[in-house]
């Protein structure tokens, strides 16, 4: 041994830190130690080719993350002390936060648990460690969101019953079934679905509108955890790209399997994001950008370029991407119209956009909006003014795959509804689109298990047959639902404004 130590740079040091920690087990068969990483058919010849995207030692991770946490919690404390909810643009904005908290925060939790199983399950040590870091990051996102929303929950409705409605509410089956679909798949499909399709390809469509939306609308708590999570997210995106390239390079037999997953998870992710697009277009009193515009930038430009990069591996554009693009001018209006009619069965408030907002939508969406959706809103507004706020009496039929009410229209005819049926083992299953139909037909055994909320309600499994019974079963009070104007949130906001001598909605 020499006494003069060789100098090591960070990268070398990192390589040594994890060097050869893993070993080929001999007392137990490797296939028993890693029982789940072969059944999906993905072939890995050499796990050592895996490039660890994070290159972080644990102690460095503690250091960076603790600095971020210190700052984040200092701001969350000050939000609570200074009642920063008073700085938001308008109380309607809170419904965007509710959607996030009810629908997305539980996904952070599931990501945490899902990546823990991968952090144990992949045979390659480098991949395991990367997933372990992501798991604990996702735990961070989950907990910081709970802590951030905890303050808002003290004032606004629709957040306090989160842990009940997360599992039970029909509209929250959209995100829930999405993530459970990934978690119940094998580890390679899970990581393709979450790390690549979601975090790499589609994340900008989720994260950007939500966090920028929060910033535009004066929501300090959300803006802070959002930006603080961004450096974690960039690691996660790198993992997504790394794993896809790794699988594709390992064996040519992997290509068709991965193509199938990319097709499936593009479509499932796109359907899920319809909810986010709706929030962007309708729930943000101060708009960031329209769904159409976001779709053009983040999918038609960036997403497509990414898939072009993967062409050298034999990867093609995801199936039905043309349909998604054809729908860009209508999906959020169709979605909002649906939530508007059913919001008495949600822990959200809805409303008809004000005239200025309708003008913005007209400018963003053009003729289709003016001929189809705007007249509909104006009609509903008239009814509301007469004291006949429009609600549906029965829950809508939902798609057996994406769980979204079947309101979507034909790719080439925005006036004609699309509903496709597949029969499996004597039972008919309804789907919203060719994309969802394909997914069903590829794995009917999986999707015929799906829990379909409206069916369950009418079978009496959700507290009774009426929407009133159902709401009780969800632990949603009447006051938490329905029309925004006149709601408890609205009244409280008006009271605060009046105290401050600001013009109220009534006066405006």
């Amino acid at each position, binding site marked *: 041994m*020499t006494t003069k130590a060789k100098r090591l740079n960070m990268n070398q040091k990192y390589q*040594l830190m994890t060097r050869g920690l893993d*070993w080929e087990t001999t007392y137990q068969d490797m296939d028993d130690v890693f029982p789940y990483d072969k059944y999906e058919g993905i072939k890995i010849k050499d796990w050592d080719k895996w490039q660890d995207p994070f290159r972080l030692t644990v102690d460095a991770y503690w250091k960076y993350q603790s600095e971020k*946490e210190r700052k984040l919690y200092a701001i969350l404390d000050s939000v609570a002390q200074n*009642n920063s909810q008073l700085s938001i643009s308008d109380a309607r904005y809170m419904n965007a936060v509710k959607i996030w908290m009810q629908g997305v925060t539980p996904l952070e939790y599931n990501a945490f648990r899902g990546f823990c199983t991968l952090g*144990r399950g992949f045979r390659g040590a480098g991949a395991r460690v990367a997933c372990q870091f992501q798991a604990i990051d996702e735990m961070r996102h989950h907990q910081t969101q709970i802590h951030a929303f905890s303050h808002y929950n003290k004032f606004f409705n629709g957040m306090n019953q989160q842990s009940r409605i997360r599992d039970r509410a029909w509209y929250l089956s959209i995100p829930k079934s999405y993530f459970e679909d990934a978690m119940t798949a094998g580890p390679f499909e899970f990581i393709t679905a979450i790390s690549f399709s979601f975090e790499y390809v589609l994340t900008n469509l989720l994260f950007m509108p939500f966090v920028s939306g929060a910033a535009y609308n004066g929501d300090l708590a959300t803006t802070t955890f959002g930006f603080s999570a961004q450096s974690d997210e960039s690691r996660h995106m790198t993992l997504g790209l790394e794993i896809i390239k790794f699988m594709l390079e390992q064996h040519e037999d992997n290509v068709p399997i991965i193509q199938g997953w990319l097709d499936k998870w593009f479509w499932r992710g796109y359907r899920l994001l319809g909810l986010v697009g709706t929030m962007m277009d309708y729930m943000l009193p101060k708009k960031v950008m329209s769904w159409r515009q976001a779709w053009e930038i983040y999918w038609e430009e960036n997403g497509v370029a990414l898939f072009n990069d993967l062409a050298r591996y034999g990867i093609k554009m995801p199936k039905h991407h043309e349909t998604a693009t054809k729908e860009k001018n209508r999906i959020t209006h169709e979605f909002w119209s649906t939530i508007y009619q059913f919001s008495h069965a949600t822990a959200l408030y809805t409303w008809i956009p004000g005239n200025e907002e309708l003008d913005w939508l007209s400018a963003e969406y053009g003729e289709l909006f003016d001929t189809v959706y705007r007249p509909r809103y104006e009609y509903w507004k008239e009814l509301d003014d007469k004291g006949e706020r429009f609600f549906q009496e029965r829950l809508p039929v939902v798609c057996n795959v994406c769980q979204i009410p079947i309101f979507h229209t034909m790719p080439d005819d925005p006036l004609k509804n699309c509903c496709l049926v597949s029969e499996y083992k004597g039972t008919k299953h309804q789907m919203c689109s060719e994309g969802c139909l394909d997914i069903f037909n590829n794995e009917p055994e999986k999707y015929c298990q799906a829990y379909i909320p409206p069916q369950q309600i009418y079978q009496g499994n959700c507290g009774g047959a009426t929407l009133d019974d159902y709401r009780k079963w969800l632990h949603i009070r009447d006051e938490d639902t329905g029309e925004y104007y006149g709601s408890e949130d609205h009244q409280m906001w008006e009271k605060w404004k009046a105290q401050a001598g600001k013009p109220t909605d009534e006066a405006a």
Partner: protein
Amino acid sequence: MSIDIKTATIEAKRTTFDHIVEKLGEGKTPTRYQEAVFGHQAEEVFHYRPTWDSERELFDARRTAIVMNDFEDLLDPRQYYYGTYVIQRSKQRESQEKNFSVVEKRGLLEDLDAVMKEKISKVVVPFRHAEWGANNNNYYIAGYGFQTPITAAATFQGMDRLANAQYLTSIGLILSSNDPAILDQAKDEWLNTPMWQGLRKLVEDSFVTKDWFELHVLQNYLLDGVFQPLLFKHFENEVVKNGGAAFAMLTEFFVDWFVESQRWADSTIKVAVKESDANKALVESWINKWQPTVIAAADQLAEFVFAERSKDIIQQIETELDARSKKIGIQVQEK
């Protein structure tokens, strides 16, 4: 719109989320720890059965034979949520980092006699593989365990073990003046030297242990309860007595970490044991099944380190472990 009114006029409607009120009772203000760990794992309306475990739901209490009325009772006495965890660890990291750089810069280990150096490289450095095993096992508990208190804490424990493996690597590199051959040698020892095979077989057996609570008992209670004191108490004393005071600076983290991780292991096992006679019998059966093998594996290593004193030391360790067991309500078998 920024509303500028005296915050005194702003009245809260509720103090916290409904599920926390249900748990703690009306009018209590929860801690951030409680908000972070209660009520987050999905409980019902699972859409699909896992393709990797089609007999059970995605989250399923039946992945352990332990039965709890409420698995959220398996709380972490340290009350770590992510923020407090990383902040606490980063403080410890700072002092550990200082220790490393002092020892390295001043060459404090260089004067250590060759026998001791050899012992460190044969006993401490190969143990990084056991720490890696512990890392894997805790991620198993985190992934397949039930409810957030135990799975979140297992995630922290998993991270800690990777840190331990990396700290042990650093110790090796200080000893070898950054020559990585020391790591390859240590791996060879781990794979081939007879004195490591008892432990390696145990670690590999733990990798195929399906019941996550059994794995918790095996890894975080028994294996740790025997090997941590063996290496970072008894062996460390040995090195210190032989002119290696600096070695204790390198292992400071382990000592502090073990004290707190033990608290967590003891308290979670105690709660499960207290819940029912059936749980108690189960935990006892696991301890009876594994403890003799763990002790035997430690014996093999102790003999190399302590020669004729090894029996004494192992006995001391086992007595301490048995005392812990009694404290948490477990009937200890006559030896």
